[in-house]
Structure formats: structure tokens, C-alpha cells
């Protein structure tokens, strides 16, 4: 019987076995040496090719992807505006300013100016570089201090969703001098243009409000010229452009004239032009003179008293001469125009100084109708074209006063742009605000050629 004691078993081993290199140990050591060497060889080959891409900290943005292999385009050293070569870990602002304009942000007020890279992070993949993080803005605006001390504006803004002031435009009344009652115009069954026998006009917002790019019409309630697509303005091009973003201005000729014509005298057909009082005055005089030439006996007719202006009783007129008739007739018509027709919408200055000293005509105050309500931010109507107008501008249906500001408040925007990470539309600062003060931009001189940028230059 085969017997094996512990001693026998022990003696069959080589006691120094751990000092010897077995095949397994050799294979392990060889692999441990070769695998790193393989990777070093890869880096060496890349180095010989002059390719620094392996050391890049991340993928370039799409905008700069063409510079992917020309690291020194951005990472060169600059002294002032002079490129002196070498390699710099963090790209200097001057490297960005070689290709881009970036006017300073309130240069005389800010306590510090961040570097380009601190807001526009590169090497983080295919991102939109202009889409900067809120923290870049709130690092100052969460507790705003300027070189002049505390600013006059709200100085603690954290985010659009959480802590952002109401829009400035809503904090003061609309100072437009054109009297307009939205609620009246939004009623159903309006009478419509002169001659309409039924009340069948229902105005839509787009009858008056359309983006700047769609101003060529047709406009339902414009002049005959505007009621059909007109060639007066350049037609829309095949590409969308910034004219889609903002609403175009309101004009009498496009939006009001069909219903609100400007008749001036029963003897003369038609309307006065929607022009300055001086032009209107000239038009009235010419029209009546022309009428008198056509009807030489007209000045002898007695004009029955009429009651054309509420509260003003006119007496029957009997002219003594054609000139006298013309003078009285112009005065009567202009009294009607200045006192009622124009005044229905326009504010006229009543002080003596306001009258034209030579013609004795009233002075119409400038309309002062804002074409842009957000003076420091940007809103794109075309991006919101899926939303009904009254969904945001609900007050337009009931507003009776001109002074009502009808842009929606911040809560309306927050319905979608709440700032919640996954369940809301984008609400970053960059969406509405721009950091750079583009009014300060200066003439720019490009320096690169395409081969230099693409790395094909010798």
C-alpha cells in the first residue's frame, strides 16, 4: 500500500521555489513590461508626427473643431497682441480676440473682467460656446457691486426660475401717445370698413401684429395697396433671419386705414393723407380750391348749420367772396380734423408754443410707440409661434387704456422656462441676455488664412 507521510510530502518540494521564475511569473513580468511600452510607443509615434491631440483635455466644440490639431493656434504665448510662440496651458484672451470681437461688459462699472475661457469653456465636446452657464453671470449679479458702489438696478439675481426681477418694461406705463383701446378692437362683430352694412369683422392679433419680416402684407385692413401682397418691400428670402424674431411696427396705412378713413369735407370726396398738419392743411386747401374751380357758384350757397363736433354748435355760413368761402371752409374742415379726427388717436400739444407760428397748425406729439420692449434682452417671437398670442398677452383682450403695458410678465414665461432641470424649456441667462456690449465693437482686421487654420500651411 502506498503510504505518504507529511515529512515525505514536505521533502518533495523545492524550498526555494519562490525564488525561481516560473513560466507564469515570466509571462506576467513580460506582459507588465510590454503593455506600457506599447502605449509609450503610440505616444512616441504621435509625438514624432507632431500631433499633440492625445494630450488634449477633451473634444473641441464644433465651432473650433477645425483647429483640433493646431493646438498652438489658441495655446500660443502672447505679449500684448503679439504672438511669440511657445505653448501655454490656458489659452490667453488675446488668442480668442485674434479671431473674435468681444466688446467689454460695462467696462466702466465692472469690478473685474472674466477671461474668455472662464465663460466659454472649450474642450468639453460639441457644445454651443455661447451657451454659457448661469454661474458665470450670477458670480457678479447674485450680489452686484460696481466700481461706483451699489447699482440702481436689482442687485441680487440667482436664476430666471428662482430669483429674477419682473421685466422692467412692466414697471412703468406705456407712454405711447397714440390712444388705442385693445378691448374695443378685440370685440367680436365690429362694423368694419365704411360702407359695411353688417357687423361681421372679428379682428385677429395678426391683422396688426406680425414679425418684421412679414410686413409686406397682405394686410386685411390696410389701404388698397396693402390689402394685396405688395412689391413695395423686399419679399422674404428662402432663409430665416432675425426679422422673424421681433414684431414689426404698427402703421396707420397698413393696419387702420380700411376702417378709420380720414374724411374732411362733404364737398370733397376722399380722405386727407395721414401726414403732418402742414401737409394735411395744404391738401385741404388744394382740394377745396379745386372744388371751387369745378363749381364756381358753390361759394354763394348757404351752408346749413351742422353739429359735427359734439358740444360745438356751428352757425350757418354765407360767404361774401370765393376767397372768403375758401377761408371759412378750410377753417371749418381743419377744426373738425384737429379737434376730432386726428385727436381720436393722436395727442396734440395745446400750449400756444406748440402751434406752428406761421400756419397756426397744431403740433402732433410723436407717437413714441416702442418697437422693442425689452431693451436689454432678446425675445424671439418665431421661436414661440406655436403658442397662441392671447396665451401670453391675455391682458390685450381686456385692456382699455393706452398706458397698459401688454407684454406678459415673468410668471407667464416661467410657465415653460421654470429652470427645472428636466421638465422645463431652457432658462439660462444666455437665452435672453448678452454679456458683450456690441455697441462698443470696433473695426476688425482678420489675420488668418484658411490653410493656416486648417493646418495645411507650410
Amino acid at each position, binding site marked *: 500500500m502506498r503510504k505518504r507521510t507529511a515529512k515525505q510530502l514536505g521533502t518533495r518540494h523545492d524550498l526555494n521555489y519562490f525564488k525561481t521564475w516560473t513560466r507564469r511569473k515570466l509571462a506576467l513580468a513580460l506582459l507588465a513590461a510590454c503593455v506600457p511600452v506599447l502605449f509609450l510607443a503610440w505616444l512616441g509615434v504621435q509625438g514624432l508626427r507632431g500631433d499633440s491631440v*492625445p494630450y488634449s483635455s477633451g473634444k473641441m466644440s464644433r465651432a473650433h473643431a477645425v483647429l483640433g490639431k493646431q493646438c498652438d493656434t489658441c495655446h500660443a504665448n502672447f505679449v500684448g497682441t503679439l504672438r511669440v510662440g511657445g505653448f501655454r496651458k490656458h489659452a490667453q484672451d488675446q488668442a480668442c480676440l485674434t479671431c473674435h470681437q468681444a466688446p467689454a461688459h460695462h467696462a466702466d462699472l465692472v469690478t473685474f473682467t472674466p477671461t474668455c475661457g472662464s465663460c466659454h469653456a472649450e474642450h468639453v465636446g460639441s457644445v454651443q460656446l455661447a451657451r454659457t452657464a448661469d454661474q458665470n453671470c450670477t458670480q457678479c449679479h447674485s450680489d452686484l457691486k460696481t466700481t461706483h458702489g451699489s447699482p440702481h438696478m436689482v442687485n441680487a439675481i440667482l436664476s430666471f426660475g428662482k430669483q429674477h426681477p419682473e421685466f422692467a418694461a412692466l414697471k412703468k406705463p406705456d407712454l405711447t401717445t397714440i390712444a388705442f383701446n385693445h378691448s374695443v378692437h378685440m370685440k367680436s362683430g365690429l362694423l368694419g370698413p365704411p360702407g359695411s352694412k353688417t357687423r361681421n369683422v372679428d379682428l385677429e392679433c395678426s391683422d396688426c401684429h406680425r414679425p418684421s419680416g412679414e410686413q409686406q402684407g397682405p394686410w386685411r385692413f390696410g389701404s388698397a395697396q396693402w390689402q394685396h401682397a405688395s412689391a413695395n418691400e423686399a419679399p422674404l428670402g428662402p432663409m430665416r433671419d432675425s426679422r422673424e424674431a421681433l414684431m414689426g411696427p404698427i402703421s396707420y396705412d397698413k393696419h387702420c386705414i380700411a376702417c378709420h378713413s380720414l374724411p374732411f369735407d362733404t364737398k370733397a370726396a376722399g380722405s386727407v393723407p395721414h401726414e403732418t398738419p402742414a401737409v394735411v392743411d395744404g391738401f385741404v386747401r388744394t382740394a377745396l380750391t379745386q372744388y371751387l374751380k369745378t363749381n364756381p357758384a358753390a361759394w354763394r350757397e348757404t351752408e346749413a348749420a351742422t353739429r359735427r363736433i359734439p358740444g360745438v354748435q356751428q352757425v350757418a355760413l354765407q360767404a361774401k367772396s370765393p376767397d372768403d368761402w375758401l377761408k371759412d371752409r378750410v377753417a371749418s374742415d381743419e377744426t373738425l380734423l384737429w379737434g376730432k379726427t386726428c385727436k381720436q388717436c393722436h395727442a396734440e400739444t395745446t400750449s400756444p408754443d406748440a402751434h406752428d407760428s406761421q400756419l397756426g397748425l397744431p403740433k402732433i406729439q410723436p407717437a413714441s410707440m416702442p418697437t422693442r420692449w425689452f431693451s436689454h434682452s432678446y425675445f424671439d417671437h418665431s421661436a414661440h409661434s406655436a403658442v397662441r398670442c392671447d396665451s401670453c398677452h391675455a391682458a390685450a383682450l381686456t385692456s382699455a387704456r393706452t398706458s397698459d403695458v401688454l407684454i406678459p410678465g415673468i410668471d407667464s414665461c416661467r410657465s415653460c422656462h421654470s429652470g427645472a432641470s428636466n421638465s422645463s424649456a431652457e432658462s439660462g441667462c444666455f437665452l435672453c441676455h448678452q454679456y458683450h456690449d456690441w455697441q462698443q465693437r470696433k473695426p476688425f482686421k482678420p489675420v488668418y488664412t484658411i490653410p493656416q487654420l486648417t493646418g495645411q500651411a507650410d
Partner: protein
Amino acid sequence: MRIDHTHKRWAIVTAILFLVSLAVYVPYSLESAHGPSGGSAIGIAFGVVGYGLMIFATLLSLRKRFTTWRIGRAQTWMRGHLWLGLLSYPIILFHAGFSLGGSLTTILMILLSLVIASGIFGAVLQHYLPNLITERVAMETIYDQIDRVRAQLVEEADRLRLAFSPTLEGLLAPAMSNERRIAALTLKLVNSQTRSHLTEVYSDQIRPYLSARSARGSNLRSERESKLLFEQMRTVSPEMLHEIFNDLENICQEKRDLDRQSKYHRWLHSWLLGHVPLAAAVMVLGLIHAVVALRY
């Protein structure tokens, strides 16, 4: 190494360090304008700590090389290697801000992931396989000495063979007992056909099986086949030789155990062929990444 209650303290310390790192990372990540980055102060700190943990994990191989150094028990080093090596992974992810970066850092992250995955796989094997070996390998020996033991088994079998295929030198060999000499001589004189059959079986089947490292195709790899073969040998031979065949059968059984042990040990250690070289590559490329990132 089994992951048992002796790992509890290491596991707790690792969990605490992870939670502390997480507590630093989360606010840092939320407050960073462009998200976490390896180049920020906190990102660099995570990188230094993560690489430090990897260096510590690498030192285990040196500890194994210099067994006599009084720098702590090998088991303690192994536990540290296991838990702190594991901790290095989330720390490095925090360092990278869960992004891959450029090609060098992408390769580094892939390699580190493979190192950690192979390490976890190895730890699982090291936890379960030793028990399995103890259960299934009765005559276990030192893995690196298996070839040497197998050669000794061949020698032992050759000596036993002399009993049924004697040579003059064999009969005179001092290792042979008188009883076996008599049995061998009896067989030689009585039945030359049986003797040649047994010799043929030994030369064609038993010895090749014992000498070969893997012995694929040999029917002696199967315990049942082996039993049948030796039963047949006992049937055709005189009873006095049965003990010889019992011993040969026992030697074959030990060889089967060695083969089984080899197989389990290949499982137990083959993952190191991936783990160690990849870890070496991570250390070298990690150093290059650190130098390039900090310098440039």
C-alpha cells in the same frame, strides 16, 4: 484571499472615504459653471489622491517580491490593495468629472476600468475557488511545484513498473522489496503474454499520462476509465501484484488531482495576466498625463 469579517474595518474606512469624497464632489459639481473638471483645484486634488491610491495598490507587488521586509503583513497589504484600489476608481471618476476627455485620458479611463473590473473578478475568484480546490483536490500541492511533483510521480511509477516488467537492474535495485522481486520473477517465469500486456499498458497509457502536463485524450483523465483499466490489470495478473496496481492507481489519482488543481489555479491566476500589465500601463500613462496636464 477570502473576503470575510477581517475586511470589515477596511470596508468601513473605504465607505467613509467614499462618502467624504462624494460630499466634496456633489456641491463642487453643482456649483462649477462648466461642470467638474480635472484641471480645477478640487479636480487636481481628486487626481492626486486617486493616483496616490493607485500607487499604494501597486506597492503590493513590491511587498510580495520582498517577503522578508518588516513593512506589515502581506494579508494587510492585500486588504489595502483590494479596498483602496477599489476606492481609487470613484475618486478618479470625480477627478475626471465623469467625462473621458482627450484620447490619452480616454485610454486611461478604459484601462483603469479594465483593471478595476479584472480586480473585482479576481477577488471573487479568490473568494470562492480556494474552498472549491480544498473540496475537490484531495492531494493539493504548491501550484508552482506541480511540475516537480509530477516528475516525482513518474519516477515512483517507473519503480513500480519493475514488478511486472523486470530488468536485471530493476530486480537488483535496492528500492525493491523481496516480496516484489519474487512476484516479478514469478510473473516473468509463468506468463510472458500477461507480462507483455501489462508492460504495454504501462508504456502506452499510464506513463504518458503521468508525464504529460495536460494529457489530453488519455482515458486515465477519467476516474471511471482509470478504475476499469486497473481492474482489468488486476484481473489478468497474480494476486501478489495487485498491491502494485493499487499504488499505480493511487498515483494516477494524484495526477488527476494535480491536473484539477492546475485547472483551478489557471482560473485563479490567469486574470492577473490582464490585471497586472494593464495596471502597469495605467501607472505609466497616468504619470505622463499628470506631468503633461500640470506642466502644460
